[in-house]
């Protein structure tokens, strides 16, 4: 599974959760879901884009 796919699944679960927890009206739920989901996926892509020029470090040692 790709990193992007897992990020989307994670964003989907968390967005659905807070949509149900914080809002009661259907329209408000959809609005909050879109804000959270697109914010997380878009934010993740933005951070990945900004980090792209930096070289990866050595792998972390296994304790």
């Amino acid at each position: 599974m790709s990193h992007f796919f897992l990020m989307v699944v994670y964003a989907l679960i968390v967005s659905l959760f807070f949509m149900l927890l914080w809002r009661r009206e259907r329209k408000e739920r959809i609005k909050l879901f879109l804000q959270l989901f697109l914010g997380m996926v878009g934010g993740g892509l933005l951070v990945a884009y900004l980090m792209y020029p930096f070289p990866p470090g050595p792998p972390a040692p296994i304790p």
Partner: protein
Amino acid sequence: MAEPADSNPTVTSPPAVVHPPVGNPYLAGVLAWLIPGLGHVYVRRRRRGLAFFVLVVAAIWIGCALQGNLAHPMANQPISALATLGTIGMGIPYFLLRSVFGYAGDLVAPSYEYGSAFLVTAGLMNWLLVLDAWDISRGKKE
């Protein structure tokens, strides 16, 4: 001469919406912690409780499928206590995974970090459900 609207003493802010209390808040909180969504079922929010159950269990299942870390306290690693506190929020599934199924995760699995994020998120989401069930039971939320 007409008075400004805000000087009218009869104008007041709308009353806060009050919801009827449902059940025992302590029991609602404990049930919500033991099994995700059960607290909401107890306070008669069955559909919401079922949806929360599906979401939290899905996060746990994906976390285990990705071989994530089921946090436990480790010596000289204080952060592990915080991670444990968050993850243990998933309630009975935590103890089932650790004690019955002997699940521990796989540190060298490529998806280990992702799985750990899913597992601790499941626990933290369920802590929020405990607070939500508590508030609903006390009549502070719908």
